């Protein structure tokens, strides 16, 4: 059964790959997932190693949701919206940084405007212009983040749809139920910065620390 599933899927994937000139992109995910469904159904069962692999992917996504969710360690209600929030936070902080930089540049330009013309003034103005140009980064960062969020969302939706079609609910199979603190591993402690709205202040930390 396993070998038959593999041959059917391989053949379908080769077909898709040829149609897209050897380069698969995000729009092909639909076709790929459909191929997996067909291959598994034609293969005759749900216990193929292929389906097992898809479950593994789904669990990884679920773990990622948990890791990115600041207020729900179970991740049962976490969604890729949480991942989106984290990425939005990156875009926000780069925007803040860019604006701070440009505030300072505009101050410099304003001061320069009051000085008599000189080579030094021209040179400084040129450098300030370069700083403004460099602030293009914020726009591009934001656009790339949006792309990542959309890609991630698409993958998650397709995986969930695939598993649902086989009656598999990964929330009930997830191994990562909320653990008591004495069972946390080193990895559990690595959560990265919290979102601004959730992040405790130094005062909060001091209060916790000092009891």
């Amino acid at each position, binding site marked *: 059964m396993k070998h038959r599933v593999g041959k059917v899927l391989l053949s379908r994937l080769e077909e898709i790959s040829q149609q897209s000139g050897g380069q698969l992109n995000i729009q092909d995910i639909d076709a790929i997932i459909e191929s997996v469904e067909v291959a598994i159904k034609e293969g005759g069962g749900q216990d193929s190693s292929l389906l097992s692999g898809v479950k593994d992917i789904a669990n990884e996504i679920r773990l990622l949701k948990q890791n990115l969710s600041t207020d729900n360690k179970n991740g049962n209600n976490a969604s890729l919206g949480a991942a989106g929030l984290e990425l939005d936070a990156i875009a926000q902080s780069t*925007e803040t940084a*860019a*604006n701070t930089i*440009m505030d300072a*540049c*505009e101050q410099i*330009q304003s001061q320069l405007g009051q000085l008599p013309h000189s080579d030094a003034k021209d040179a400084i*103005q040129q450098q300030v*212009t*370069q700083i*403004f*140009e460099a*602030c*293009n*980064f*914020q*726009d*591009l960062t*934001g*656009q790339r983040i949006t792309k990542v969020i959309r890609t991630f969302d698409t993958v998650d939706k397709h995986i969930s749809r695939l598993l649902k079609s086989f009656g598999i609910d990964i929330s009930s199979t997830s191994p990562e139920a909320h653990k008591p603190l004495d069972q946390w591993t080193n990895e559990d402690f690595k959560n990265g910065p919290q979102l601004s709205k959730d992040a405790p202040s130094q005062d909060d930390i001091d209060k916790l620390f000092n009891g």
Partner: protein
Amino acid sequence: MAMNTSMNVLIVDDYKTMLRIIRNLLNQIGFNNVDEATDGTAALKKLEEKQYGLIISDWNMEPMSGLELLQKVRATEATKAIPFIMVTAESKPENVVKAKEAGVNNYIVKPFNADTLRGKIAAVLGG
């Protein structure tokens, strides 16, 4: 021939940082009458209220993209002749071709520098 920098310029982008950058660069060139819009729909409203001599627009915006804005600008008698420069991260040949077909006057890819913006504006306005 010097550019007429006293004209009204409309800049359109959903990223406020980018609006700020373009405004600053335009000020340096001498364009001080600069209005902003954060998407095509808002830009069309501005175009109904004032006469502009130049539009500089991003492509990827919601609810109305820069391409849709361009198409509407070119389809409207009052605005069809306004020079329109697309400033966008979209760099595929298909994008450039599509924008050209829609009537864009010039196309700048992000990230860009002041000289590029100045040069493209000069090319479009004949400066």
